[in-house]
């Protein structure tokens, strides 16, 4: 009897479970498969994101009021103002810290809302099929072609001005940003819906919402995570773009509005790089960090990518192993 099948047919309790694991056992699967594999890319990405998040979260505790106006006007970085001041003498570092927090907040809000919307329309549509599916996918396709720019103004108009701020812009960005993801989710759900384990759950008597939440959703997690990350990047970038056009989150401070004020204050023309560069750099670094994290998520969604990623690293190691294997072959 081949030893590696010992467990398969051994009477209960006698097999020592671990020794008899089939060769595939070391492959990752289940919940652990949902975690990205560690790689330098992921490390750098997480590092950037965490650093910027901390910067935005606890930074405000250490800097002063970003709105404090000083008569010194525009000054380059100095010991007192590490990143200099704006034309109204406001401390750029303090502004940057608050703006980062504002942008993160918008990114997070949009990420959550857009992902929720796309999950709602994509997964439910995909699972329910039939008319609901047709209607949902038509709706998402229409949403895909609606221009977002005027929606910003329209939706802002419905929110009382004194309650307006990053929320409003986040809602708009979410509303205009979920559709593409929903299409992807729908396709994925359609394929998961046909899986036997979904059928098995139904045979076991599970309710539809439970099938969706417990059987289907977890397997969509990497995809959802990737879409979340993506919509956070997109939200921060779009918010900056809208702000540049003067349509942004005007009553809250974000990196976009900061850039907008820098631009309006002729920061670039005055070569006040300390005012213009940092917000862009923070956005770029944050987006880049998220993109790097997304690389790892991509590898979960499409395991073939992982193989490609591993090649190089393993190749270096291969030299050492060859020796060992050939020796054991000879034996």
């Amino acid at each position, binding site marked *: *009897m*081949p030893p590696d099948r010992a467990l398969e*047919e051994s009477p209960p309790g006698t097999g020592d479970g671990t020794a008899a694991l089939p*060769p595939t056992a070391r492959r990752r699967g289940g919940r652990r498969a949902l975690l990205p594999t560690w790689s330098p890319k992921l490390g750098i990405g997480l590092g950037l994101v965490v650093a910027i998040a901390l910067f935005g979260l606890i930074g405000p505790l250490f800097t002063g009021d970003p709105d404090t106006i000083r008569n010194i006007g525009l000054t380059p970085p100095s010991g007192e103002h590490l990143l200099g001041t704006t034309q109204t003498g406001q401390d750029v570092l303090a502004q940057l810290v608050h703006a980062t927090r504002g942008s993160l907040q918008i990114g997070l809000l949009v990420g959550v809302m857009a992902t929720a919307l796309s999950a709602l329309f994509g997964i439910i549509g995909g699972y329910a099929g039939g008319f609901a599916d047709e209607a949902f996918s038509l709706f998402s396709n229409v949403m895909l072609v609606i221009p977002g720019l005027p929606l910003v103004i329209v939706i802002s108009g419905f929110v009382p001005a004194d309650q307006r701020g990053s929320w409003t812009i986040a809602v708009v960005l979410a509303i205009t940003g979920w559709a593409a993801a929903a299409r992807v989710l729908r396709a994925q759900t359609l394929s998961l819906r046909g899986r036997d384990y979904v059928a098995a759950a139904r045979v076991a008597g599970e309710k539809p919402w439970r099938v969706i939440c417990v059987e289907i959703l977890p397997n969509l997690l990497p995809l959802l995570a990737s879409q979340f990350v993506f919509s956070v990047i997109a939200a921060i970038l779009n918010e900056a773009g809208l702000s540049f056009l003067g349509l942004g989150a005007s009553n809250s401070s974000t990196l976009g509005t900061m850039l907008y004020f820098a631009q309006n204050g002729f920061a670039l023309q005055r070569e006040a790089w300390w005012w213009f560069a940092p917000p862009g750099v923070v956005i770029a670094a944050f987006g880049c960090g998220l993109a790097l994290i997304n690389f790892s998520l991509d590898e979960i969604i499409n395991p073939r990518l992982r193989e490609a990623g591993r*090649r190089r690293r*393993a190749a270096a*190691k*291969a030299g050492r192993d060859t020796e*060992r294997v050939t020796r054991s*072959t000879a034996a």
Partner: protein
Amino acid sequence: MTNDIAPAAARPAAGNTPPEAVLTVRDLNVVYRTDPPVHAVKDVSLTLNRGEILGLAGESGCGKSTLAYAVNRLHEWPAEVTSGSVTFHDRDGGDLDLLALRDEELRRFRWAKLSMVFQGAMSALNPVISVRAQLEDVLTTHRPGMSRQERRERCAEVLRLVGVEPRRMHSFPHELSGGMRQRVMIAMALLLDPQVMIMDEPTTALDVLVQRGILREILRLRDRLGFAVVFITHDLPLLLELSDRIAVMLRGEIVEYDTAETIHRRPRHPYTRTLLDSFPSLTGDRGAFLRTGAAARSDAPGEEDAR
């Protein structure tokens, strides 16, 4: 180009003339450089004779495909042939050390002398290119001198050989049934009149009835064209019926290598016996299986497995 199809060669394997080898594999080792490394093929030695059908049996993951790919050097990283040799004995007399071929030589060798048929024909055919284009690809690459007309005719000819109407040439793979796709793959493998054809589970995904039809086709073509076949499957009864000799693989090693008849009647290795017993015979004695009788009362592993 009709002389591409050699006149039916003698069938040495079954006859009395001493067998002439077309492919020799000696002490082949293949390792997957993963973490930890997998030693997928261990010291395998095989000889494939001209016109013979060699069955390669073994359960999933024992290294059958790895062996087959190694012969054609299809492996990419992380697979690596660590030692051994594969020699091709050409009809014209020359020997080719396949593992030593340079890239361009290897490219020329592939398909011209040794062709392959893979398991899933749907995925083995490019879904977005028509069947004809995929057939002609081979000819334009390996027979650059051929005219369009000749190419067209050659494709039609091989399709006819495998029993597919030539006008289906213009179809795309998904427009063909599974059986037809597999036939197209075989037709493609015949295009250059190779001396060896490696078939890696060519019928596993097919319906029993279709499978039968294809197997019959392979035998017929082999008899007519005289190529040798390496037939890989885990379906031992099928091999017993089909092949001349059988090699049984277990965890990368060949544990038994003999004529089909011997393996069927007098299996020596316990694993071969296990394998044989895994397939209840259709027409044999029903009592041979454990369903009824005292033995069936317990499904103690030893008994369940021992057959």
